[in-house]
C-alpha cells in the first residue's frame, strides 16, 4: 500500500505544480495502518515533489485506541503538528451505543497524553445520541472545555444503515434519533462554546481564533486539493476526481502506472451549486460580489430571487455583500441550499 501511495503521489505531482502546499492531512485511522516512519516518509515525499510553505498544517486524524504514548511521541517528533481525535463522547453509555473501540477512561487519558506533545488538537464529539440527556451533553462539552483543546468538531448522530444501532432502534431497544432533541443540543453547544471564545466557523466546527482547521476550510473555500489513496477525492477548481474504493484494485492499477480514478468536470451550474452549498455552512456565507464576478449578474439575480422568502422568514440574512444562514436556519441549511440551487439543463 505504501508503495502504491508513493507511486500515486509522484504520478500526480504535476497536478498541483503551480500551487504551494498549505496543509497535509492524514485521514481517519491512518496511524492504525501506517507506522510513524511511514507517515514521515510520505511527508518527505510531499516535500520532494511539491512546493511546501514554511509552516504547513500537518494533521493526523486518529481514534483514541490508535494513540498510545509511543505513537504520540513518535508523531510529535515528526513534522506532524496537529491531531484530530475521534473522542465522540466521554460517557460509557454513548460509546457503547455507537460501538466504539475505546471507553470513556481511554478517551480522557488520550487527551491528557496528547496534550503533553501537541498544542493544536481537535476533538470530535457526537450529539443527539438516543438516551443522552441535555445535562449529559452539557457535561460532555464541559469536559472538553476543561482540557482546553482549541478546536472541537461536533456532529449530530446519524443512524447508518446496517449498523448495530440501526438494528437496536428497529427492535425498539433504543429510542429513535430525534431531530428536535438534536437541535436543542446543537443550540446548547453553540451557546456554550461561543461564550468560551470559540468561533462557530462551520456548521460542525468550532475553533479558537488561529486554530481553525486550515485543511477543512480549504474545502469550503473551493481551493484545490489532491487526495491520495483508495477512495480519496481531489479537486482542481474545475474537476473533481475520486479513486476506487477497493484497496487491491487501487494497488493493482498503480502497479501498472495507472491512476485508478474517475473524473467529473464541473459545469458552471455545478460550481455555483457547490459554492452555495459549502459557503452556506460557514460563517463567511455567500459573497454576492463573488457570485456576480464568477457567475454573472443573472446568477446573482436568480440567487436573490430564490433567497427572498428565506430572508423574509429570517432563515437567511442579507448584509451588504454577504448572504448567510441565521442561527434559526443553520440546522436547515441543506434544504435552503437546495432551494438556492440552479438545475443543469
Amino acid at each position: 500500500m505504501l508503495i502504491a501511495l508513493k507511486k500515486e503521489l509522484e504520478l500526480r505531482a504535476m497536478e498541483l505544480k503551480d500551487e504551494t502546499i498549505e496543509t497535509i492531512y492524514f485521514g481517519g485511522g491512518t496511524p492504525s495502518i501506517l507506522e510513524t516512519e511511514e507517515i514521515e516518509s510520505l511527508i518527505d515525499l510531499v516535500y520532494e515533489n511539491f512546493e511546501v510553505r514554511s509552516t504547513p498544517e500537518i494533521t493526523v486524524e486518529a481514534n483514541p485506541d490508535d494513540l498510545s504514548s509511543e505513537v504520540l511521541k513518535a508523531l510529535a517528533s515528526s513534522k506532524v503538528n496537529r491531531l484530530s481525535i475521534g473522542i465522540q463522547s466521554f460517557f460509557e453509555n454513548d460509546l457503547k451505543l455507537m460501538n466504539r473501540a475505546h471507553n470513556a477512561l481511554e478517551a480522557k487519558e488520550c487527551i491528557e497524553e496528547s496534550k503533553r506533545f501537541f498544542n493544536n488538537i481537535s476533538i470530535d464529539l457526537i450529539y443527539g445520541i438516543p438516551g443522552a440527556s441535555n445535562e449529559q451533553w452539557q457535561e460532555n462539552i464541559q469536559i472538553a472545555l476543561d482540557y482546553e483543546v482549541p478546536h472541537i468538531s461536533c456532529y449530530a448522530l446519524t443512524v447508518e444503515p446496517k449498523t448495530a444501532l440501526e438494528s437496536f432502534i428497529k427492535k425498539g431497544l433504543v429510542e429513535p434519533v430525534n431531530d428536535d432533541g438534536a437541535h436543542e443540543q446543537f443550540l446548547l453547544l453553540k451557546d456554550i462554546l461561543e461564550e468560551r471564545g470559540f468561533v462557530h466557523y462551520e456548521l460542525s466546527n468550532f475553533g479558537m481564533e488561529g486554530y481553525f482547521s486550515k485543511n477543512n476550510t480549504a474545502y469550503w473555500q473551493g481551493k484545490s486539493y489532491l487526495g491520495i489513496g483508495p477512495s480519496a477525492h481531489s479537486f482542481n477548481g474545475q474537476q473533481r476526481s475520486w479513486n476506487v474504493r477497493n484497496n487491491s484494485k487501487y494497488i493493482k492499477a498503480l502497479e501498472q502506472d495507472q491512476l485508478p480514478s474517475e473524473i467529473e468536470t464541473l459545469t458552471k451550474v455545478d460550481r455555483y451549486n457547490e459554492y452555495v452549498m459549502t459557503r452556506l455552512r460557514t460563517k463567511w456565507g455567500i459573497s454576492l460580489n463573488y457570485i456576480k464576478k464568477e457567475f454573472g449578474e443573472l446568477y446573482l439575480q436568480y440567487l436573490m430571487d430564490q433567497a427572498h422568502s428565506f430572508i423574509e422568514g429570517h432563515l437567511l440574512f442579507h448584509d451588504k455583500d454577504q448572504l448567510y444562514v441565521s442561527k434559526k436556519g443553520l440546522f436547515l441549511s441543506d434544504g435552503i441550499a437546495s432551494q438556492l440551487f440552479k438545475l443543469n439543463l
Partner: protein
Amino acid sequence: MKHIRNFCIIAHIDHGKSTLADRLLDYTGSVTDREKQDQLLDNMDLERERGITIKSHAIQMEYEYEGQEYVLNLIDTPGHVDFSYEVSRSIAACEGALLIVDAAQSIQAQTISNLYLALENDLEIIPVLNKIDLPSANPEEVTDDIVDLLGCDPDEVIPASGKTGLGVEDILAAIIERIPAPEGKPDEPLQALIFDSVYNPFRGVETYFRVINGSIRKGQHIKFIATGKDYYADEVGTLKLNQVPKSRIEAGDVGYLITGIKDAREVKVGDTITDAKNPTTEAIEGFEDVKPMVFAGIYPVDTEDYEELRNSMEKLQLNDASLVFQPESSAALGFGFRCGFLGMLHLEIIQERLEREFDMTVITTVPNVSYHAFTNKQPDDVILVNNPSDLPEPSTLNRVEEPYIKASIITKADFVGPVMSLCIEKRGQITNQTYLTTERVELNFDMPLAEIVFDFYDRLKTVSKGYASFDYSPIGMRSSKLVRVDILLNAQTVDALSALIHADNAYTIGKKMCEKLRELIPRQQFDIPIQAAIGAKIISRETIKALRKDVTAKCYGGDISRKRKLLEKQKKGKKRMRQVGNVEIPQQAFMAVLKLND
C-alpha cells in the same frame, strides 16, 4: 341480409367479455395464430395495461353453419359505468346480445343495467354462464339466478369458458339460430347509426356504423344529421382485424367510413348518417350529446407548459370526443383548463394519457359535479357552476340544485346494513330493496352524484368486503344546500383547493381535508398553518410543523460532490410540486379530498 348477425357482448366489469370475444375470433378463424393475444380487441395501451375495456370494439367474423356462410358482426363493449352511453349505442346497432355472467360472481349491477338497455332495444338475449372452469364457480345456482332474472328456460343458458374455449361452438350456433337477421330496407334512403369512432393520425377519424336502411358506397355524398355536416365517403369497408375496403355496405351490415374528418368532435356517437341529396326523413332515435358528469381543473405542473398542455388536450380530444375543456385561470395555479369527464375513471384515464402519451405532468384539482345556482336578483336564470369559484356569494344566492342519480347496488344479504349506512351517510334515499335470491339483494337509492365522486367506490368495496357492485343513471336536478369550503395555507387562500360541499358535511370534510393536507404536504423550513374556511369563518385548522433538521453534519472533500448531487435531486423533485406563496404543494395533494378516508 339473411346471413348477417349483429350482436354485442355485454356484462358486468371483468366478467370476461373481451376474453370470450378472443375465443369467438379464434374459433371462426378470424385471426391467425400470429395475431393472437389475450383480449385482442383491447388495443389501446391503457386498456391492455389495466386489463379493462375503455372503448367499444367492433369486428367482423365469417362462419359456416349447416352448410351456409354467415357474417357475424361482433361488438365488445366496456363494462364500466362511465362508458354506458357508448354501450347503449353499441346495443342500438345490434339485434342480439350475449349477456355474460361470471359463474363465480353471478349477477351484478352492470349485468342488470346493460340487460335493461338491451331489452329496451328489443335485443334477443343469449345468456352465457362464463368462467365455469373456475374452482369457485357455482354453475347451478348462477344458472338459477339468470333464469330468475330473464324468465328464460334453463336450457337457454350456455355454459362457457373464455379460458378453455368451452361452449364457443354452442354460442355461435345460438347466435345464428336465436338472433334474428337484420331487417333493413335496402331501397330506402341511407340511414346508418354511428356507434363508435376511432382516431387514426394518418387517416383522420374512422367512423364505425351500422346501416339500418339503404346502403352506403364509396364516393357517396353523405350527411351527419345531428351535426348537419356533409362529407364524401372516401372509403368504406368492413371491420376485420384489419379494415377491408368495399365498394358498398348494405343495409343490415356493419362497417367503417373514412371521410378525412380530423376532429373527433364532428363524429358523434349515436348520430345518423344519411345521403346528402336524398336524406332519410328520420334520424335514429336515442342520440344524445354526451354530457360530462364530473368537472375538474387541469393545470401544468410547470406554468410554462400551458401552451403545450393545450396542444396535448386538443390532440386527446381528437380521439376522445367525450372530453370537453375550456381555459380557466387560478390564482394559485395560473392558466389551465376546466375539463368535463364522463366520470372518475374517465378523469383518471385522461390524466394518465396526458402523462403517458404527451409526457405532460399535470395537477388535477378537486373534482366537482355541475350545479345550477340561482340568485335573488334573477331567480329564474340558471347559473352553471362547474367550478367552485362560479358559486355566487352566499348573500346573493337564492338556491342551488345538484344532479341526482338513481343508484343500483347489488350485494350479499350480509352487507345490506353497512351498504345502507354508507348510502345514507352519502345523502342517499332508499327507493327499493329487492331480494334477487335469498343471498343477494338489489338496493336502489336516489343519491346526489357529487357523493359518488368523493370516495364512494372505495368505501363501498370496503364495507361490502368487495361483494357489492354499483351502477347509476342520472335522474335530474334537485335542490341542495351547497357551500364552498376554501383552504388557506399560510393564511393565503389556495383557490385550486376549494371544494363545493353540501352544508351538512362541510365541517367534517373541511377537517378531513386539513388533516389529509398535513400528511401530504412535506414539512418545510417554517410552520405552515392549514385552515378550512367557509367564507370568513374558519372551520378547521392544522399545522405542518417546520422541519427541525435538514442538514448533514459532515461536508468534507469527498462529501461535496455526493451531497451536491443529492441536493440537486431534491431540487428536481420539487419541480413536481407547485409553489403557492412560499408553500410547496405536491401534485397529488390537489386531489387529496378524494381519498379522505384512507
